[in-house]
């Protein structure tokens, strides 16, 4: 059984059709990259997978881990192991980063009938993940994403992923706006999490990221449809030819 099966997915946003019939199958252990020009629907797909309610699914279905993903609320999907690394991580003044992540981890633990983790148990785990992403410990008590640089925000997303250990991770343009050092650190974090139990969908605008996170499959999304699929070599080809739809 596949971990994720998207069948004929049509999505409207503000009465405007963005996704026009997407089919995609992702198995555990695989990394898929979705590439495409601006406005092709990449982020919409990512947000639908994370169950953002403003996106109106008009047709099709998404089966995740044998369950109907479209029936799930955002928090349920998260507890079932879906994780979205946001393109634009949200700043939440007044909530400490460590507190936020412990709340998230505990919400998921509770969902699975596990004991909640107290601050004492959580801290070493949190520090270990901070180290993985080469993040400063002072980010521990700062408000969520508030005053973080672009690179720090993206690293903070991967930090959450490392902590929550999702089954399906969707990375929405995690590489955009990163300098090469930050990109390497983010990629290292992501690669550490690759494993036979976990699948990833890496949404990107630029081929550059895929030098560091080598996907098993590459899909080209143009105008709400997947127009081509192939192996990692497809990304290189796109770098040469751009996103022009082949005749």
């Amino acid at each position: 059984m596949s971990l994720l099966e998207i069948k004929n997915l049509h999505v409207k946003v503000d009465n405007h059709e963005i996704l026009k019939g997407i089919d995609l199958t992702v198995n555990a252990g695989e990394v898929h990259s979705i590439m495409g020009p601006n406005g092709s629907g990449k982020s919409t797909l990512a947000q639908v997978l994370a169950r953002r309610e403003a996106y109106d699914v008009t047709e099709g279905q998404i089966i995740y881990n044998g369950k109907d993903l479209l029936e799930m609320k955002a928090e349920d999907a998260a507890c079932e192991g879906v994780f979205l690394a946001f393109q634009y991580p949200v700043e939440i003044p007044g909530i400490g980063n460590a507190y936020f992540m412990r709340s998230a981890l505990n919400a998921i633990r509770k969902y699975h009938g596990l004991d909640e983790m107290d601050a004492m148990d959580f801290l070493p785990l949190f520090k270990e993940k901070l180290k993985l992403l080469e993040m400063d410990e002072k980010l521990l008590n700062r408000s969520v994403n508030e005053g973080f640089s672009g690179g720090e925000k993206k690293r903070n997303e991967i930090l959450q992923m490392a902590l929550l250990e999702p089954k399906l991770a969707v990375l929405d343009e995690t590489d955009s706006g990163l300098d090469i050092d930050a990109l390497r650190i983010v990629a290292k974090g992501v690669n550490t999490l690759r494993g036979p139990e976990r699948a990833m969908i890496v949404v990107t605008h630029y081929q550059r990221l895929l030098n560091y996170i080598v996907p098993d499959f590459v899909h080209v999304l143009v105008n709400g449809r997947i127009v081509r699929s192939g192996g990692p070599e497809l990304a290189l080809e796109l770098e040469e030819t751009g996103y022009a739809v082949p005749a």
Partner: protein
Amino acid sequence: MIAATEQLGTYLESFTEFQKRAAGRDLPWLQNLRESAFARFCEVGFPTTHDEDWRFTNVSPIAKTSFELSRDATVTKQEVKRLGVAGLGCQLVFINGKFSRGLSAIGQLPAGVSVNSLAEEISANSNSVESHLGRYLDTHRDSFSALNTAFAEDGGYVHVRRGVVLTDPIYLLFVSTANDKPLMSHPRNLIVIENEAQATIVEDYVSIGETAAFSNTATELIAGENAMVSHYMIEREHRQAFNISTLRIQQGRSANVSSHSVLLGGGLVRNNVHPVLAGEGGECLINGLFIGNGHQHLDNYMQVEHASPHCASRQFYNGILDDHAHGVFHGRIIVHKDAQKTDAKQTNRNLLLSDDARIDTKPQLEIYADDVKCTHGATIGQIEENALFYLRSRGIDEISARKLLLLAFANECLDRMAPSVARDHVENLIHAHLLLIANSVKPLSTVARNEDLGRNVEEIG
């Protein structure tokens, strides 16, 4: 003013009765203070919404009700324990405005600190009271202050002598009880913190039973040179309660005063905070949080007077309003002619959780000096949908996510309170209150988006 005359007879009757038995009735200065204040109240009456200072708050429900002066009521130790704060050495309990020695615990205090009920202090030691009582409160302009002064008898009396540092808060608990007739009380607190002394005072207003009650409280807080004072005002009475409170702060040279107002309860609430920075280099923080739902009306009126050079004042008020609640923020800053190098800042941020909630926010700057820095700003927003989704996408359910966001907003105020038992108490109250609010808020999908209403609002997280 018309409204006042309706019940004037009742007040006159109460006042006549009061004069016969009140503590200090034989003291000419006190008699005089009370009588002239009562005369002023009769003259001016209750304010109406035509009065600029009361434009957004209609007190006719108070003016129309015939209140009786509070009388003795029995409250058990258990009830006080349930309402109060555990682990505090010095707690004064007032039942319907009257000091209850049996329910209070003054405990061991450092030398140079006296804590008493005002009524007992008047009887035992009227000289110390005379030099401050009624010297600062504006009974001429404000008729509620006049009314309070007319009935001024009991409340908290705190005197900290020069250089004494008091680490534990002095906690004043005001309990109003149920009664078959509407009751009024006029607690009057006098807090004198001498030069270089340090203290924290908490006023906490609660109620037992749900009948109409009118608490009209006034506090005069005198902070000497270099004194460091924190004052907390917590309103958590039931929804039938009317609460008008006035905190008048007189600051000496380089005194540092923080006022924290937390309005959670009460039906019709008006909280006046009026610091006068009378000496050079004084600093004043006026920090507030008001959280309303149902039909609560929570009015915050600040009047910050810069009377000396080189003083700094900061006003930060955050409001959270749900259902049909109505909040008011009126921040007035007066910079006198000689108060050069004044640095005054005012910020009011509001979250409206329903379409029927309402906030009126009004800055008012009167500047007569020419070398000053004054800024003010206000925002009105909703819970940001992006932030809510972000939290939910991490597994946190919608109600918890809402609570977290409300808490984050409230935390801005909590963060301005120095760590202490008082702050912990406030934090617990706010947490419990916000959980109730988060549970009752309708999901976003059923709330019309602000764009549709053509309102000019800014989203804040």
